[in-house]
């Protein structure tokens, strides 16, 4: 993985020193909260309902075991013994004290981590496919390019005060998009136009929030040498014309819709023409310099494990078999698999993980992998390089720490924002609803429902990605009572779709019953258990679901 060079080390260390001084001035009362707020946000520090919240950047979700141990150490020493993996592959602490912030940032810097650009109207953490580098279906590992984009975007002087925040995601897989590139401000797909001729398909103007919009292809092929200049051209057009008078209309998606993709493309091309042969040309030497950090680890030569893993899915140990079914993913190197570590233990807040659990995962990564761990945007973790022969050991170790729930990809693998339990923006709670749903369904029910995604947001800002959940829930406040608007049919992947509202919002007390009726309606109407929830919904439409839900829970 990428190792900081002198420049990285210096700018991160300087930021720690600067922020230490700014915190001291705030604590003395020399500067007011209004003056301090933009400074703390630039260092990932929010003020939430109960305390400060710190968001730590994890570029493209990739961590070393030492970094994860440091995150655990900070959780134990400065927070309440846990952290929360967010829907953008970051980690958040919910109980931070301002006085501790300088020391926390210094400790993060000691393991090449920081909280820079995790908030504010700038280019945020660059996210990527959580199986990058090990996915059998990828054309190319997208992480070197993600790292190059991270370096370009970090402290970019022109883009420190954009009209609104800006999110970029990448995938190197030609299909089965696991990075949700079509619902990002910029989504990048590595494509191969002809054998050996690789470049990038650039999507622009996607996003969720108040106005969910699926992005559009602004250019179907950008050669590698031109990637940064093309991104810079997009950002310049956005920075020039993006609205600053209304924060709800300030994202690039609104600009792209207002101009139309053809006019937007024309303006980007005009800007690009001016800069494409300038200092942003990405030469082979620079790409190779960064790519060297992502060289494949020293894999052993092992026999193929596909048949063996298939056998483990039928193991007489039903708990283990079920875990293998949901948690083990094929790897591009024979004999290896990737293991998805569920942070969705039924009854626990989605994405929350204790310091002890973090340390256990870090130790496992050292023992059976190559000391690397990946955070997913679905709020789980990945052990990317596990010899298939070690699966029983990994399962036992994870199970001992409460991390082997066999529910990844199921109705219990719920994405949920922090909601009204923590967040100042929320209108309703998300975590308790996720907990109630997860506890409703036993393993047998989860197996019957198969692959289905449930995503919950506590407000219209949609941090829980509810628009692209197969089943989405949006919390709303109706005269002081929590209600949930139900959407069906969303997807963040190749078959991207924004879910459609099923009907009137449903009271909190009735929402879990409603979800169960949606899932049972799917089972009733599917042609076979090989037809997924999404396929059934798209084939039969909303009517049977609506009849089922509202016959039981009239609005």
């Amino acid at each position: 993985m990428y190792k900081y060079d002198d420049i990285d080390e210096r700018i991160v260390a300087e930021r720690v020193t600067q922020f230490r001084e700014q915190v001291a001035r705030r604590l003395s009362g020399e500067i007011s909260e209004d003056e301090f707020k933009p400074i703390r946000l630039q260092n990932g520090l929010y003020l939430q309902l109960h305390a400060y919240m710190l968001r730590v950047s994890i570029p493209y979700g990739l961590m070393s075991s030492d970094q994860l141990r440091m995150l655990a150490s900070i959780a134990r020493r400065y927070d309440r013994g846990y952290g929360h993996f967010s829907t953008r592959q970051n980690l958040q602490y919910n109980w931070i004290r301002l006085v501790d912030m300088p020391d926390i940032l210094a400790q993060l810097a000691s393991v090449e981590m920081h909280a820079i650009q995790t908030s504010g109207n700038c280019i945020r953490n660059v996210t990527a496919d959580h199986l990058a580098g090990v996915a059998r279906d990828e054309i190319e590992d997208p992480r070197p390019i993600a790292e190059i984009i991270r370096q370009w975007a970090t402290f970019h002087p022109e883009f420190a005060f954009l009209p609104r925040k800006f999110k970029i995601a990448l995938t190197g897989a030609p299909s089965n998009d696991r990075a949700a590139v079509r619902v990002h401000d910029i989504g990048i797909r590595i494509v191969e136009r002809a054998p050996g001729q690789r470049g990038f398909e650039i999507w622009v103007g996607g996003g969720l929030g108040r106005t969910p919009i699926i992005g559009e292809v602004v250019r179907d092929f950008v050669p590698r040498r031109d990637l940064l200049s093309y991104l810079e051209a997009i950002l310049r057009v956005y920075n020039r014309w993006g609205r600053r008078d209304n924060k709800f209309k300030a994202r690039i998606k609104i600009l792209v819709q207002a101009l139309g993709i053809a006019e937007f493309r024309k303006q980007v091309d005009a800007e690009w023409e001016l800069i494409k042969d300038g200092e942003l040309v990405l030469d082979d030497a620079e790409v190779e310099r960064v790519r060297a950090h992502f060289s494949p680890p020293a894999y052993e030569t092992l026999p193929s494990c596909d048949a063996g893993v298939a056998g483990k899915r039928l193991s007489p140990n039903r708990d283990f078999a079920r875990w293998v079914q949901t948690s083990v993913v094929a790897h591009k190197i024979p004999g290896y698999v990737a293991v998805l570590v569920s942070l969705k233990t039924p009854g626990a807040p989605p994405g929350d993980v204790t310091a002890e659990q973090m340390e256990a995962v870090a130790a496992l990564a050292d023992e059976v992998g190559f000391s690397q761990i990946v955070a997913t945007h679905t709020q789980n973790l990945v052990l990317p390089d596990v010899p298939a022969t070690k699966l029983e050991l990994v399962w036992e170790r994870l199970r001992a720490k409460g991390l082997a729930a066999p529910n990844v990809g199921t109705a219990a693998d719920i994405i949920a924002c922090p909601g009204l339990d923590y967040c100042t923006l929320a209108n309703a709670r998300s975590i308790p609803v996720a907990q109630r749903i997860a506890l409703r369904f036993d393993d047998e029910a989860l197996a019957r429902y198969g692959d289905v995604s449930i995503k919950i947001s506590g407000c219209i800002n949609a941090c829980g990605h509810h628009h692209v959940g197969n089943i989405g829930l949006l919390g709303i406040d109706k005269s002081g009572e929590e209600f949930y608007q139900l959407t069906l049919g969303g997807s963040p992947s190749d078959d991207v779709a924004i879910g459609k509202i099923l009907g009137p919002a449903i009271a909190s007390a009735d929402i879990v019953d409603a979800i169960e009726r949606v899932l049972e309606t799917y089972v009733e109407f599917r042609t076979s258990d090989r037809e997924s929830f999404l396929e059934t919904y798209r084939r039969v439409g909303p009517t049977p679901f609506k009849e089922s839900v509202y016959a039981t829970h009239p609005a």
Partner: protein
Amino acid sequence: MPLHVITANDTEAGHPAYLTGRGDWSRALAEARVFEDEAQRDQALALAKTDQARVADPYVIDVAWDSGGQLAATSLRERIRAEGPTVALVSNPSV
């Protein structure tokens, strides 16, 4: 006039703080000064906003006396803020 309390977040720790009758700040809503008079409330809020070293962003919330005689925030948001998350912490499920 409905009953009001002035709240903010503690600058150092970030936790909720409530303006008391003594003019200082308490973590406990039960210790908050309850305003029934609009002018007094606004005057106290203006003063609170000058207390930048100790608190951030003072504002007014609606409160009421519950059936047990305890002071309670009217909105769910402020109740959660006063009483803590409604879910147990993963690191301490008993809380």
